[in-house]
């Protein structure tokens, strides 16, 4: 049914090793440790085109680079949007940047989510924590092209109420009659009336037609493993399931070797993989 996208080289930058200066137009605090940057090219050139799932290497002057997925609307030609969780040297430095500051951007890199292949099918997104950011472009795309897709579900898990990413948008999305948005928290106090438990517990009661469904998963590897199991219990096959892998990346162009995952370079053969392509490695330790 779903045909896995062949290695596609889309939107490759012209000089992939050289960051382009972008200016921060706006910083939005999403949660206590997550923020969103709205960027525009500092030199007035057009904003880069990207496909949902692609990422950029963001450079903080003098500090270093991080691989960050594009979290904005692929149809928005005015801004480039990234959502970042501050976890270490570069992302902490990034969190200190303000409106008007400059940042270097290389990209876009990597394989996209199968939004074209999924046309005509039900779409199920399963994600946790910051993993919602790389999938937000898919949500924008499907909502903007709603007639091209079947049922549409977003299953989202967060650790606690204060980790609810894009909370305002989640509420807005929930208001759509043709978009099934389910949110669950790992732990919650008594004033939370929603689901409690890991995100995989939402799968058994989500409606989709297993024969005509494409699932897209982004989250920690354990979460993706259990999600794949649950989806397969519901009748999905490994070629209908797409996951995104995370590995250390120094170059994003296939030269540094750091992102290798068995025979795959996550930077150029991924980060989005049809699960059947990596099923033999997934879950093997220390690959």
């Amino acid at each position, binding site marked *: 049914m779903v045909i896995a996208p062949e290695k596609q*080289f889309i939107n*490759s930058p012209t*000089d*992939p*090793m*050289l*960051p*382009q*200066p972008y*200016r921060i137009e706006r910083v939005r605090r999403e949660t206590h440790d997550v923020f969103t940057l709205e960027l525009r090219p*500092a030199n007035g050139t057009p904003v880069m085109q990207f496909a949902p799932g692609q990422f950029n290497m963001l*450079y903080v*002057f*003098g*500090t*270093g*680079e991080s691989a960050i997925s594009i979290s904005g609307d692929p149809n928005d030609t005015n801004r480039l949007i990234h959502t970042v969780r501050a*976890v*270490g040297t570069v992302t902490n430095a990034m969190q200190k940047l303000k409106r008007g500051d*400059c*940042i*270097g951007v290389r990209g876009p890199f990597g394989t996209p989510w199968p939004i074209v292949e999924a046309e005509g099918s039900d779409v199920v997104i399963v994600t946790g924590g910051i993993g919602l950011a790389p999938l937000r472009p898919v949500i924008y795309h499907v909502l903007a092209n709603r007639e091209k897709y079947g049922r549409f579900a977003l299953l989202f898990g967060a650790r606690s109420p204060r980790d609810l990413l894009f909370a305002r948008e989640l509420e807005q999305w929930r208001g759509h009659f043709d978009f099934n948005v389910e949110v669950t928290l790992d732990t919650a106090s008594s004033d939370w009336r929603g689901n409690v438990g890991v995100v995989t517990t939402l799968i058994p009661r989500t409606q989709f037609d297993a024969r005509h469904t494409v699932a897209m998963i982004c989250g920690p590897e354990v979460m993706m493993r259990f999600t794949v199991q649950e989806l397969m219990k519901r009748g999905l096959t490994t070629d209908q399931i797409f996951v995104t892998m*995370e*590995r*250390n990346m*120094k*170059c994003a*162009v*296939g*030269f*540094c*070797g*750091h992102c*290798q995952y*068995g*025979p795959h*370079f996550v930077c*150029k053969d991924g980060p989005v993989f049809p699960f059947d392509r990596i099923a033999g490695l997934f879950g*093997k*330790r*220390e*690959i």
Partner: protein
Amino acid sequence: MILERGDFALLLDALQKTHQVIGPTIRDGAIVYDELSSATDLPIGWTDEQDGGTYRLKRRNDEALFGYVVGPQSWKRFLHVPRQRLWQATQNENGIQITPEPQATHRMAFIGIRSCELHAIAIQDNVFLHDQFTDTFYQARRENVFLVAVNCGQAGGTCFCVSMNTGPKATSGFDLALTEVLEDGQHYFVVEAGTANGQLLLNELSQRAASNEEQQKAEAISAQTATQMGRTMDTAGIKELLAQNLEHPRWDDVANRCLTCANCTMVCPTCFCTTVEDVTDLTGEHAERWRRWDSCFTMDFTYLHGGSVRASNKSRYRQWMTHKLSSWIDQFGSSGCVGCGRCITWCPVGIDITEEVRAIRGKE
């Protein structure tokens, strides 16, 4: 064609007019590749003895120019340099300006490159020139290099190019290829041109075509070298063999011996991995990015927030060997190993990739 030993200097002289000439020379008890000012810089009359974890230079009883095999360095240090600045940047109130690094423009000639090493360059070409992206730093150097190959007159104790189909005779990828003949008081080179440029130079150097007998002598030397391989590796189905044995107990065994010192990856002519360093000056207004060689044996290599993916010695050795011999084939259509033997010779504890393959095959 025939180039007499007495005329060998002409080859270097001719190349020196237009190229930086790099070739083997002796330093710190080993044969290394460095700039040659004349043919007397070559390790004339020397040979090497190599085995797992050992390397020793020894006098020969003749004055051969190329009577040894490969040393600790490979040519990758001149094409895929150990440290490369990628760009510089300045920051002021107007923002960031990023200035690309100028490309290398000098021309290099490699003298004495062996067949396995030509294959190693072709393998790195696949990484840096023939995949989705092009490494312009590598490309600028690579396009300006003149390759003078030497067909090995003897094999080293850790060589296994015959098993890897990469030698000992150079069959392509060179401008000139030399076979050194020392016999009955005669000393000359049988020279073959591999490119039009090579042919032009050769025409300048030599007017004498090789006789049938001289040709056959050269062939016989390569054929004899092929019978002397210090090591062998059975490569039949090796891609699947390793991919299907990621949990083989032998990985634990080798992990107990491996020091994860990264020597094997540094000496390997095909290993291409790098890391980057972002630096600033004291004012904080000037920044640079440098790329330098890295190794999958380091802990940092796979660091993700929270820890390294390959935290154990076992997983790092497994990555190295499965990459060289198995996943490389998936990625680039050829083995990542050319059988040069460097990783065996320069391993401080003498771990031998050919022996590890045998063990996984279960033929110990």
